């Protein structure tokens, strides 16, 4: 369980997070949604220790962010880096191998090799294993990065808007992979999503934020409705139920 206790955050004098207290339960996909500037990405980067905590506490199981050693945290919690323009000429296999760095500090054991092989297999990257990242398409590159995170084998996986720059096929395949990571490998996934419909379809739990505060949270079937859109996004789009999923009509 990730426990967020009284977390406030300001950047350059501007309040981004306002005394946020909430919990993210173990297992399943938790989606953070909200309008631009709601503080979703900031909250995620605080959990991932990308930014130092200003006020409040964040605990990942028993590990306290800011007090726990980086190496130990890296074995429990991972965050998918955003795709950058600059890609080193690493092969897919070399990149996925770095996922084992928190365990082996650069000296891979047979067990590490097995984990890397498993990750390549699971993400269908065997054919690409010897290709360098700069020769891959955006979707393939992202799959390679997620395979690295998978090889890192942490209980918690954080992702910040991973669907950006992905076409619909790559986006769907990513969301399905995340679902199976939760179902088959008992991961807990926290994901910032831009599209509320994606959250409604794939997430097990939604945390809706606005102006640095959590407005509502719960199961998508229960909370995705026109009042949520009104309260969080200040728009009155209709919500319909299709095959058991609440969908917002743009």
């Amino acid at each position, binding site marked *: 369980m990730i426990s967020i206790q009284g977390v406030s955050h300001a950047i350059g004098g501007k309040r981004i997070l306002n005394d946020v207290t909430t919990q993210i339960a173990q297992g399943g996909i938790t989606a953070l949604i909200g309008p631009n500037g709601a503080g979703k990405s900031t909250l995620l980067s605080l959990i*991932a*220790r*990308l930014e130092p905590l200003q006020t409040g506490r964040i605990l990942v199981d028993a590990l306290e962010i800011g007090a726990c*050693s*980086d*190496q*130990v*945290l*890296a*074995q429990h919690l*991972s*965050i*998918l*880096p*955003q795709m*950058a*323009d*600059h890609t*080193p*000429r*690493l*092969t897919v296999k*070399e*990149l996925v191998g*770095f*996922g084992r*760095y*928190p365990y082996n*500090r*650069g000296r891979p054991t047979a067990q590490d090799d097995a984990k890397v092989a498993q990750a390549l297999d699971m993400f269908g990257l065997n054919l690409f294993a*010897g*290709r*360098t990242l*700069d*020769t891959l398409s955006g979707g393939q590159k992202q799959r390679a990065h997620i395979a690295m*995170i998978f090889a*890192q084998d942490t209980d918690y996986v954080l992702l910040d808007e991973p669907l950006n720059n992905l076409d619909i096929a790559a986006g769907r395949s990513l969301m399905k992979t995340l679902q199976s990571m939760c179902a088959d490998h008992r991961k807990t996934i926290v994901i910032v999503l831009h599209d509320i419909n994606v959250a409604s379809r794939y997430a097990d739990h939604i945390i809706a934020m606005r102006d640095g505060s959590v407005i509502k949270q719960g199961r998508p079937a229960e909370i995705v409705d026109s009042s949520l859109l009104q309260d969080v996004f200040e728009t009155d789009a209709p919500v319909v139920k299709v095959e058991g999923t609440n969908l917002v009509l743009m």
Partner: protein
Amino acid sequence: MTLKIYIWAGLFGLALLSFLSLFIGVIELSLADLWHDPAAFELLVISRFPRTAAALICGSSLAIAGAIMQMLVRNRFVDPMTTGTGPGAGLGILIVTIFFPAAPLIVKMVLASLTALGASLGFLAIVQRLPPTQPLLVPLVGLVYGGIIGAGVTFVAYQADLIQYISVWMNGEFSGVIQGRYELLWIAAAVALVTYFAADQFAIVGLGRTASINLGLNYTQVMLIGLVAISIVAALTVTTVGMIPFVGLVVPNIVSRLVGDHLRNTLPLIALLGALLTLASDIVGRVLRHPFEIPVGTVFGVIGTLLFLWLLSQKPRHE
């Protein structure tokens, strides 16, 4: 597999060139002379061996420094010698020369390392404010930044009537290297060697800040270690033989295109190719206008650029 072939070919070439380097120069020297002529042996020990060693050390450590800097800055087109670190080292030497002319060499060295580090930190601070979507801005800003520091150094040197003195280390060449005047370079060699133990850390930093923190790395610490290593190498090279541009730019790029960026595997080849090309440039510079010499930096600029252009025109590798 290909990596091993390159390394063996490189070692073979290096052995050949080193042998040539020992026997090429203004004074005739042959292998047979060494057996009966003590003067020939003296020439080898005092001049030819130090010169060869200096070229090998400078070439390999500058190439490694370039590879590390390209990882830290996440840009393939930076070269520590031109983007601030080299001119920064020059600034340190100038300060010592003007204010503490009697200071021992080691003091000069330490201060040059510190100013080189300061200049590198300044460059990094600027780079982090540049838009990541414009990768070519980084080397351009680096050139301007290095140029400004260099111009400052030249101006102060001009005022202090030290222009001749600074031109010695603004244009690197090995003709002044003799026994007793290059040994500090071995420290640069040691520093370059030690960086190998942090090869994985540098490669991960090349993936970006988020990826580094995700894998449990102390990002700031790795950046600082890298910059310190680069600065020491730059300062030692500049104080002993002078600035040699392009090695740190061209060599890592060639190796990256041939075998990739996994530094733990590629650093040995980067060191090897840096040594090879630098020594080759020095030998060519010694032979072309015999008995006069062309500075190694000039020759390297031509050879390195041609190699680089040829590589750029090749198709990217697919396996």
